[in-house]
């Protein structure tokens, strides 16, 4: 659709336009998506975006300043560098720029996707709608695929490229007051089968044929991997080392410092991120266009490795950029775009956990999760699209929805059992944490604060 110059050339022109230390990134995005609802396709879209960023570093005496400017599409590289210089300000996160060589794929074209990758899903949807109508149900959902190709260059000589594919398929079935949801994250639609999701939705609606009223209170709950994913992703996003040191998070130690090293769970959970995680591969270097409390533009190009946020139940890393880590005497730990929770030795599936439940609630997913109390990292939110009553090892019906008030940190400490870890797409935060793998968890006393009339 366009005749924009090759991203690698744009990177080189930016670096050439700079009279001193400089970083350049080009983020090329191609995407396609289709939505459906009420048993018909609705909106759709194909997108091609390009974001070009120049980061200029200016050192004068003891002071280092940095300036950032970002524009889209075809840019005037010299003007972009000049804009970055005009915006340069004192940088508390200053650090030496990352050294390195030219990656072998740096001159490759950006990876592309378009509506054709959704062709099979679109072809299957007509049948899904037909079967739903036959069962008195309506289907809604969303299918999307995008590829972001990042080109990064530095005046140190470093040149990196990474193409990150991301896909997701959601399916929601509604019939009368019943609803059920299933979703899958994948890098390619070759890995996604809508029939599998349709079967999960059909099973959920069948379970809900029998409606049971359950009162608010503390219940034994089986959190499926999708719900655990939303809890864990939101928790890791709150794990800023700088903010913990300020005393303002659940990871702050009373009296000063952080809770690094502290045991959070008696069970030896590991919560980790790793760009090389099989099936969840993601960008193996830092690429950012703005500094924050724990991400730094100076770290652009920094290699990312395996980071265990929690290991053997202990808090082992908080998020730090290199400058912050150096100040605090801890290892740097920039964010990585995947997340895995596992319990060594865990065996069995979600269904196995259900089969071992005398009486409890099996959730489908969570919704509208927000921080209520940062001191305890208390979240509030809702159950959605299926709360199932389990008795004597099997689902006997569906209950009403609930508002919960719970902390993910407390959940890890109170969990009594976990399943094996599997890929899971969170209902609320899956758009921002597509590459996650989680176990199901058994929580003996999950706090359902009130009943929600929503169905």
């Amino acid at each position, binding site marked *: 659709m366009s005749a924009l110059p090759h991203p690698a050339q744009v990177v080189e022109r930016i670096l050439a336009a700079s009279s001193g230390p400089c970083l350049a990134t080009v983020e090329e995005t191609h995407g396609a998506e289709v939505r459906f609802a009420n048993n018909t396709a609705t909106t759709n879209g194909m*997108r091609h975006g390009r974001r070009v960023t120049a980061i200029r570093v200016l050192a004068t005496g003891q002071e280092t300043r940095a300036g950032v400017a970002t524009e889209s599409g075809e840019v005037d590289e010299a003007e972009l560098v000049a804009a970055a210089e005009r915006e340069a300000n004192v940088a508390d996160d200053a650090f030496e720029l990352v050294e390195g060589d030219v990656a072998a794929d740096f001159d490759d074209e950006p990876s592309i996707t378009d509506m054709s990758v959704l062709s099979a899903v679109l072809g299957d949807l007509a049948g899904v709608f037909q079967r739903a109508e036959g069962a008195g149900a309506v289907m809604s959902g969303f299918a999307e695929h995008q590829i972001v190709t990042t080109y990064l260059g530095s005046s140190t000589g470093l040149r990196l490229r990474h193409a990150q594919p991301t896909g997701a398929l959601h399916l929601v079935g509604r019939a009368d007051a019943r609803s059920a949801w299933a979703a899958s994250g994948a890098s390619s639609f070759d890995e996604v089968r809508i029939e599998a999701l349709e079967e999960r939705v059909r099973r959920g609606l069948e379970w809900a044929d029998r409606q049971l009223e359950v009162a608010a209170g503390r219940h034994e709950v089986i959190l499926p991997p999708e719900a655990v994913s939303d809890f864990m992703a939101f928790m890791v996003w709150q794990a800023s080392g700088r903010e913990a040191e300020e005393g303002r998070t659940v990871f702050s130690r009373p009296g000063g410092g952080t809770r690094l090293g502290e045991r959070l769970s008696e069970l030896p959970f590991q919560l980790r991120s790793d760009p090389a995680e099989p099936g969840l591969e993601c960008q193996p270097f830092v690429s950012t266009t703005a500094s924050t409390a724990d991400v730094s533009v100076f770290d652009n190009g920094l290699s990312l490795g395996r980071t265990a946020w929690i290991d053997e139940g202990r808090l082992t890393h908080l998020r730090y950029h290199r400058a912050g880590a150096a100040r605090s005497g801890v290892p740097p730990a920039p964010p990585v775009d995947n997340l895995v929770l596992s319990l060594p030795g865990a065996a069995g599936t979600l269904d196995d956990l259900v089969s071992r439940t005398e009486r409890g609630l099996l959730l489908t997913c969570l919704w509208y999760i927000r921080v209520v109390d940062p001191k305890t990292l208390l979240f509030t939110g*809702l159950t959605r699209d299926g709360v199932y009553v389990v008795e004597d090892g099997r689902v006997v019906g569906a209950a009403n929805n609930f*508002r919960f008030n719970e902390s993910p940190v407390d959940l890890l400490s109170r969990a009594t059992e976990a399943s094996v870890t599997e890929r899971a797409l969170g209902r609320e935060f899956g758009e921002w944490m597509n590459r996650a793998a989680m176990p199901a968890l058994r929580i003996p006393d999950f706090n359902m604060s009130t009943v929600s009339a929503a169905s």
Partner: protein
Amino acid sequence: MDGPLDPDRLAALRDAALGAASAGGASHATLRVERIHNQTVLLRDGRLETASDDMGLGMGVWAVRDGSEGFAGTEALDPESSSGLARSALEAARVTARARSRPVELADEAPHGSVEWSSTYGIDPVTVPLADKVALLADWSERLLASAAVDHVTAYVLATREDKYLADLSGTVAVQTRVRVHPRIEALSVGADGEFETMRTIAPPAGRGWEYLQGDGWDWDEELAELPSLLAEKLAARSVEPGTYDLVVDPTNLWLTIHESIGHATELDRAVGYEAAYAGTSFATPDKLGSLRYGSPVLNIVGDRTVEHGLASIAIDDQGVEAQSFDLVRDGVLVGYQLDRRIAAERGLGRSNGCAFADSPLHVPIQRMANVSLEPSPEEVTTDDLVGGVERGIFIVGDNSWSIDMQRYNFQFTGQRFFEIRGGRLAAQLRHVAYQATTTDFWGSMEAVGGRSTYLLGGAFNCGKGQPGQVAPVSHGCPSVLVRSVRVLNTREESGR
């Protein structure tokens, strides 16, 4: 560069896109060219931490052919790309038609010819140098850090300028500009025992220019001066006893309750299931239009895309519909919905009331929220008058945590400042307060609304909806209100402590 988009370049893009769409058999096509300049500046303890300056320029074509719609967007701006974009949109319509069970139709809208419009502002906020922004936020931060009650301060300002160009096959050509700013500063106090509290400014985001940060529309000096003492009092405050309380809710808190429990619930696309996969549906279904008792007789809610300084205000929406003002709830009864052209046609409701919006030229316009506001009392009723009618209650100021279910029944909100009310008078602050209710119960228990003097236009930059997710700015005006017998939780007890 900021400033007007080049008219000759726009005309060339328009001719190429709409020409290709027309040649391809489109019954409707819209080209949007948008430049969106977003800036974020954040200081921590008076030192710059984040400076982001992002100028996006792109275009999108939305086309309807043979009862199917398609959209395509790109950030490559040239006539060849523009005509190719139209063909891509038509191809998307063709491909997705395989899964379309019924045709898309659009409500009629008369062409508006050439329209030029700008929001009201004095100083374009994105043109203010970063150094000036840093200097102002640093000054504000230092004022707070000078207090022994304050351990840390974060201060930020978000600034946006949107230049929107829209042309459609009917002949409407709209050139529109709007700006908005959202300054916020938060102070943190950490006790020796590790307990901590924050207190932040309650100034709303506004469809105004940089002059807003200079005192036009908000008294920053006054608010900054009182923050440290408010924070110290909050850290030492008694933890609330959970139970049922009468609430007097300040507009700095109530705007968000309106947004979640009325604004989203009266979006017709949600109410008929088109957002069931993600954002959710609504309890306020069309069969209840004209009969649903949404709240007490003093509940009068208006949707409005024309109010001055409103974050959702515009002249022509992203489907070419003129901005309007319309009733949603009158005398406590549901009487209307927010519409775009698709949903208005599908439900046979005649003309759209102009609620289409896309947050990017690369996203398809969907129905988004107008400025949805609660009308004040025609009588002069002050906040003190409302407090005076409460024997045991809480006065809630400022927003914080929020959550509501997918049908907009059950909500839970917290706030910034909670003042106990005893015997009709304000007493000391309380801590750990959250209020929880069902939408119609809450609004049905609203006994009184304040007068015009208590009215404030609140809002947010980041209302989320759609897949892929889109964010929209929106304002909500409201007075102070008195609501009887609302469930109040102690958030610390909720966490089991």
